Structures are given as C-alpha cells and as structure tokens.
C-alpha cells in the first residue's frame, strides 16, 4: 500500500533519516521505536509533509506523495491523519469544533472562515467523539480537558479526516499510564475495525509489543530492525537503544498492568508518588 524508497532527511550536517526503505503491504499497525533523536518523528512528519524530505520517494497508490503540491498536497495531508505527542488541538475552541477542523480540507475557505459547519459535520464529529468515549465533553473547551481526553479528541479529529492511514507521533508520551492505555486501545480499535494503516512512534518497548503487528526499530536515522514484535528480544532492543548491559526496560515502561517478565509490579508506585 505504501512504499518508502530511500527516504532521506538532513538538517544541515545532521542526517535525521538516512535512506529509509520499507513497504507496508496491507493495513497493519506498525510501531516505530528508537531512542530520542533516532529520527522517528522526522520520518512521520515527512509522510504527512509537515517536514519536507531531502531526497527519496514515498509511493502511495502509484503516486510519489513527496512530489505533491498545493491543493493535492493538502488533500494528501487530510488522507494521512496525524496524532501528536502534545495533541496540537486549538485550546480555546470547543471540543466538537476541534474535531470538525479535521474536515477543513473538504470545505470552501470562505465558508470555513465564518465557522459554518453543516449538520452532517456535527453528527460525524459527535459520533467520532462517542467512539472514543468523550462525546459528553463535546461542548467544553479543549483546554479544559485532561491530557488523555485531549489526545482522544485529537484521535477523533483524525477519524473525522476519514484518512487512509493514521500517523501517531508518540501519542502516549505525555500521558499517565491509565490514559496511555485508553489511547492505545482506541488506536488499535480503529486499526482493527476500520482496517486502516496505523503508524505509531513509541518510546517504550512493551507498548509496541502489546499493540503492534510489526515493529520498526530506528537508530541514528537508519532502520536497524523490522519484524514482528515476537522477534524483539532484549538483545535486539539493546541494539536499537544502543544501551549497554545495564539497560533495564522497566525504566521506560508506562504500562499500568505490568506485562509479566519485564515490568515488576510495585516499581511504579513509589515512582508515581515521587512525581505526585
């Protein structure tokens, strides 16, 4: 479905993404992992065209989306919805409007400038919100919601775009474990029910293991691992994270349930207490 062909991005002397090539054949939930600065965000942002690529091609339905311009580019942006770590909502607008903003691309500029949305839009937005379980917050301002709720609004907005794929850049990094689970569950549910590609940057291994069909590991802009989560051994993880023997996965875990072997229950409690 979508094919990456030697996609590269350099910032000055620094190569953030280095000739990355891979293909997603069928609707999968793909997790991208790697330590900070590995190039995960840059990769996703290039797909959505938020960051221009330096070279390479990304082929979707036979078209190089890196070459799109103007209205077709914006049309493509609509087709690959993006979910951000910091939610990127408009804080002072109410939730339902925020969700409806996902449809801006289909609307006439003038009409949208005057805040005119159709009954259809409202209904679609409400059903998206309902699907994420926050329809009752529809009339609140986005900034009044908790982080987890805001992220769900962001996902609702993504749904509203009716996209071919959803790109999520560390969607749970700013959330507490409880909300992280809800958000990841929602993404998974969307992937399963609507059969959409979900490309999700994650910074914790256990989340990737739990939710993804396929995991891509990046290091210094290169893909160093690509396979099913089951192949993701501690050794591989060490390679991805460039960590030494002392690497302890628990340190980055955000799960609240504790996935058995890697995350001993009880560790979280005092940690949470300290930060609280």
């Amino acid at each position, binding site marked *: 479905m979508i094919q990456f062909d030697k996609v590269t991005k350099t910032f000055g002397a620094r190569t953030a993404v280095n000739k990355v090539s891979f293909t997603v054949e069928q609707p999968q939930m793909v997790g991208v992992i790697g330590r900070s600065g590995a190039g995960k965000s840059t990769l996703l942002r290039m797909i959505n065209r938020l960051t221009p690529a330096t070279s390479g091609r990304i082929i979707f339905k036979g078209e190089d989306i890196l070459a799109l311009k103007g209205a077709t580019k914006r049309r493509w942006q609509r087709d690959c919805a993006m979910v951000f770590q910091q939610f990127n909502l408009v804080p002072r607008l*109410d939730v*339902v*409007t925020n969700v*409806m903003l996902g449809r801006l691309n289909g609307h006439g500029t003038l009409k949208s400038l*005057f*805040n*005119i*949305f159709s*009954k259809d839009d*409202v*209904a679609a937005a*409400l059903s998206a*919100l*309902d*699907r*994420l*379980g*926050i*329809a*009752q*917050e*529809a*009339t609140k301002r986005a900034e009044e919601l908790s982080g987890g*709720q805001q992220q769900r609004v962001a996902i609702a907005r993504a749904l509203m775009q009716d996209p071919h794929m959803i790109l999520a850049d560390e969607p749970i990094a700013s959330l507490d474990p409880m909300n992280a689970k*809800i958000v990841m*569950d*929602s993404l998974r*549910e969307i992937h399963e029910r609507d059969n959409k590609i979900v490309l999700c940057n994650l910074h914790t291994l256990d989340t990737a293991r739990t939710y993804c069909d396929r995991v891509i590991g990046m290091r210094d802009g290169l893909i160093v691992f690509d396979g099913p989560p089951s192949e993701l051994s501690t050794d591989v993880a060490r390679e991805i994270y460039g960590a030494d023997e002392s690497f302890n996965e628990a340190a980055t875990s955000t799960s609240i349930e504790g996935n058995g072997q890697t995350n001993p229950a009880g560790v979280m409690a005092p940690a949470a207490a300290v930060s609280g």
Partner: protein
Amino acid sequence: MAIDTLDAPVIDHERVFERVQRRAWITIAAPLAVIAYLTYTWFAFGVPELLERAQPDRAVILATDSVAYKVHVVKDFRRDEVDVAIEGERTATYAPDDYPDWVVVDGERIEVDLGQGYLVEIAGQTARFTVPGYGTIVSTAVADGVETQLPPGPVPEWLRDDPRKLDARPSLDRRVQVTRTKIEVHNYFGGWENFWFPFNSQLHGMSIGQLYALALSGDRLDPQTSNLWFIVNEFLENPDWQHGHVFVALFETIMMAVLGTITAAAFGLPLAFLAAKNFTPSLILRFTTRRLFDFLRGIDMLIWSLIFIRAFGLGPLTGALAIAFTDTGSLGKLFSEALENIDNKQVEGVRATGASQLQRYRFGVIPQILPVFVSQVLYFLESNTRSATVIGALGAGGIGLVLVETMKTSRDWENTTYIIIMTIVVVIAMDQLSSWLRRKLIEGK
C-alpha cells in the same frame, strides 16, 4: 469502549448543532455589524460627496512639486519687466545678464525653449506657443482679457481657453499662462533646487570634491571665518530651505520630548509609591494620588499645552511641560501598577538581613521595577517625539509648527516634503535609539 460515558448524560446532537450554528451566526454577525457601522459612517462623513469633490490632480501637482522645481519666466505688462526666477521667488531671481540658456531675450522679443520642440515666443503682448503634434497657439493680452487663436480641430484637454485667461499645460512639466496683465511660462526641472547653497552664493553648484578642497584650502573666501565654517554657514543660512531653521526646530522638538519624558519619569516614580497599595497604607493618600494621575492624564496633552502657552509663552518649555504633565499621570499609573505587582520575597530577603527601609527599597524594590521603569520611559520617549511634533503644531513650536506653517501656505511642496522627511527620520531614529537602549539596559546585551 466508552468508559467515560457510562453514567454521563447522552449528548444531544440537536443541541450541539444549535450551539455550533449560534457561533456561526456570531462569527458572521460581528463583521456584519462592523460593516453596517462603517456604511453608516460612510454616509455620515459624507464620503460620496467628498469623493466627488476630491481633486486627485492636486495630488499629482503635489507629487510633481515635491520632487521637481519650476522656473518662472514672467513678462509683466504693467511694470513692463521680464523676470526669470526659480519658483517665482524674489530671492531666486536670475540677473538679466545671467539668464539660463533656454531663455533668450532679444530686445522686445523673448524666446523660451521648453525642449522637445516646445517653444514659446513672446513679442510685445503676444505669446506664440508651439506644441509639437498640435500646432501653434497664439494669444494676445488685450485691454479686457486675452484673445486666443487655436489651431483648427477640437480643443485638447490640457488647454483652457477663457476670454480672461489662457492656460496651456501640454505636459506636466511645461505650462504657459496669459492674462491681460502678464504672460507667464513655467519650465519644470527635476530635483530640489538650491538645496545645498543659495542661488546667489559663491558655493552654488559646487561639487562635493570642490567643497572638500575648498574647506581644506587656506585662501579664505570670507576673511572673517574659516572656509569650513563659511560653507556650513552658507548651508544653514540657505534662504529657500532654511536648514538652520529646520534643524533648530527639530532640536526643539527632540528637546520637548526628552525633557518632558524625563521630567514625567522623575515625578511619576516617587508619586507611584504613594499610589501603590503595598507602599502607602493610607487610603486617603493613595486615593488622592491616583485621582491626581487620572486628572493629569485625562486633561490631555492638547489642553495642557494650551494652558501652558498662556503661562509660559511659545517655545520648547511649553511643550516639555505639557508632555511632562500628561505623562506624569500615565507613567505614575503604570509604575504604581508595577509596584503593586512586585515580588515580596525579595524584599523580605533583604529585610531579614536587618536592612533599613531605604536599603530595602534600594535592593528589594528598585532592581525589580527598574526594567519596567526603563522600558516604559523609553517607550514614552519614542511616542513623545511624535506627540511633540503634534503639540508643536498647535502652538508650542518646534518642527510641528514649521511644518504646519509650510503646509498652510501650501506653496513649496518640496520644502514640506523636506521637513516631513526630516521629521520622519527623527522619529524613526528615536524609535531605533529607544529600542537599542532598551535591549542594552534591560537584557544587558
């Protein structure tokens, strides 16, 4: 899913849609209201008639005049004299033996070559104006008006033929007028004439190199002063441009702004302590000071300057005091707000070391409000430079007054343009200076 919705009320689509629609209405209604208001004022201000009456050609004349100058060649029948003068000014009249080469006087006959085939011949009371592509206009001044013969064909737009006056302006830079008392020819040239040195100065027409050499040379043009000083003096005393006068006026304006602002700051700061809740417990004192600030601000600079003109006469002192009075109110209010918002922890820290009241202010309070103080004073300095030109125009003096006077008599637009450019330069310079100082003093860069 839907964990949160378990006990929550079911959201009503209709109601949400109504909300969304209501907001859409507001979004549309607000600009509509503004447009309605603007339409009302459009008619209340009488814009349609105004547009009808507007004289865009004035703007053209004005624009031409501000970048060009004209030389008048006038034949006056009553005095029976010929004058060739820049802008028709007495001070810039060419001597009869020194006419520009496009004016040829041969006894009673005058030939004015306006270039590109345009030619005016004046003989006795008759002017023959040859216009390429049109023909020759012959116009004679008679006892009760002018008699004009035009070439055959329709009368062109640039020509106004009236029994009392002929006015022909075939191009923007050439004009011939005939009335029963005189024939007047205008020839336009680009640039600002006599800008550096007066018409009759020895230095007129010298290049920078020549001037430089002259300034260094020992042979004094004027035995009384050095050459450099002579050059500067000739420049400043230029009667058409009056650079000296303009510079003094600019200086007056800057002085008004600087003095006014500093004075306002000097009085505003101590008074601000009296108006701040955390420094003055006495309600009466505080209230009085605040009302004083309101009074000073509310009266408005305009009115203060009118009062001061009576008391102190005309000049920069009046302007400075008007600014000082108004801004003592504005700055005082701002400072007192800044004082009320200071961080008490710092004061307490100083106090706990056993510092006296004054020391507490010096080290606990001043470092906190100094940045606010400096930046506000600099902001005001910049905007007061502009205000000073305005109240100057109302009578206090300075560049504003010079400007208004020049404009009111709307004669030499290049003079006006010059003064405006100087004013703008000064305002922009003060703006840059104040933001430079602000960066320097506050951010320490």
